[in-house]
């Protein structure tokens, strides 16, 4: 692919004191591309996702979306477009519907209107048996919370999704459903960086896989 990347990471490095998690990382994501991310435990995969969306600062390097950094666009706007779904998301107290609707109250989403009908449709894409919008979000399992958080990100039409082991608490059938939902959005232009510990899944789901081990290790 030769077009300008949607998301571009240049020379990214993260160190904690003397320990370098990764350094010199260059990574481009094109619109519609699903990129798998693998590496040994503790190699910094979650930290990389947090750094890409600006929840943590890199020690060196920068991330650009459409050629602009978060400092230029404003970080809330940047994260509205480059959205992280955590491995074990916490939902706000209340109903599933309230959890789905919550980001629509944010200033960066003021152009969007929350539509419960559309929310049900997205949940039905991701779940085989979707939770009721009026149901209590506090009783959902980790796997259900993962999928509600993913559905919410899909509903928000983020341009890049950063998915941290999004199917780690799911059975194979449920995982395939999630893969299909994300792939369908990728066909419409969504890009995603997906951490997966399952090589077979990464192979099946992603267009290519990046191994973070090449950039990890060492003490600065």
């Amino acid at each position, binding site marked *: 692919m030769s077009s300008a990347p949607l998301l571009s990471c240049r020379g990214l490095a993260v160190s904690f004191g003397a320990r370098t998690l990764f350094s010199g990382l260059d990574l481009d994501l094109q619109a519609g591309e699903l990129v798998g991310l693998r590496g040994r435990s503790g190699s910094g995969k979650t930290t990389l996702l947090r750094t890409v969306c600006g*929840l943590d600062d890199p020690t060196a390097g920068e991330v650009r979306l459409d050629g602009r950094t978060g400092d230029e666009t404003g970080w*809330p706007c940047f994260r509205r477009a480059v959205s992280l779904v955590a491995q074990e998301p916490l939902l706000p107290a209340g109903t599933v519907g309230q959890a789905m609707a919550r*980001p629509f*109250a944010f200033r960066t989403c003021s152009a969007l209107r929350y539509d419960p009908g559309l929310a049900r449709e997205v949940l039905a894409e991701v779940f085989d048996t979707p939770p009721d919008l009026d149901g209590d979000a506090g009783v959902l399992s980790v796997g259900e919370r993962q999928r509600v958080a993913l559905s919410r990100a899909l509903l928000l039409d983020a341009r890049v999704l950063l998915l941290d082991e999004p199917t780690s608490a799911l059975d194979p059938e449920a995982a395939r459903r999630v893969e299909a939902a994300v792939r369908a959005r990728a066909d419409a232009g969504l890009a995603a960086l997906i951490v997966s510990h399952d090589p077979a899944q990464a192979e099946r789901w992603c267009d290519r896989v990046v191994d973070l081990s090449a950039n990890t290790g060492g003490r600065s």
Partner: protein
Amino acid sequence: MTETAPILSWLDLAAAAGLLLLAGTVSLVLRLGLEKRLAVAALRTMVQLLAVGYVLRFVFTGERALVVAAMAAIMVTAAGHAAVQRSSRTFAGIHAVAFLALVLSAGATIWLVTGVVLGAEPWWTPRLMIPLLGMILGNGLTGISLCLDTLLERLDERRAAVEADLANGATRWEAAREPLKDAVRKGMIPILNAMTVAGLVSLPGMMTGQILAGAEPMQAVRYQIVVMFMIAAATSLGGILVAVMVYRRMFNERHQLRRGMIRKSGR
């Protein structure tokens, strides 16, 4: 209706100490083992209150601004320290935050009450200011410590939920708003409860004191109302100030919830 209370002599105090014998006897009969603690507590009460009495007598005579300021500074510092001591979590600079919130909230409220409502001249007249400041700080430190504890707990234990909001495009203010609201609300609960039951469950302490000292009951009631409003204003202002200062410390201009700021205080 302005009978003054009987003047208490040292002998009267000794007679009152006889009341403690009753508590001591109960402890002995039931083998509670509280006699020694009771004696120490009684001695402490006597020594501390007598010391405060002598200090107040010194502060009240002469109306020296510097002396009043020094007394107020000691009271605010002690209150700030106590507010922080009760919190189960802490962060670098927590003492400064509690101290500043108490100085600003108590300072503004006390000036409004003594200078504007009571029309005292000067506004820092020690006989009015010191007791009122004591009431503001006593309640304010409870409010501030509850507010601090709630806010730090929410930002620590529900960090993932706050960051989920940030990850979906929330500004730091939008992500922090609910923990901040909960914290200020929690800090206000004791004074709201006190206001709700004032006069129904018990007569408030200051009003009781004034009535015992011979004040006309309606005047004592008016004073008590002023005091309740004053405490409510100072507590809410202190809570909001603490919440905003903690917010500005925990979140940076890149709309990140800063890592490693909050730690358990071991209490």
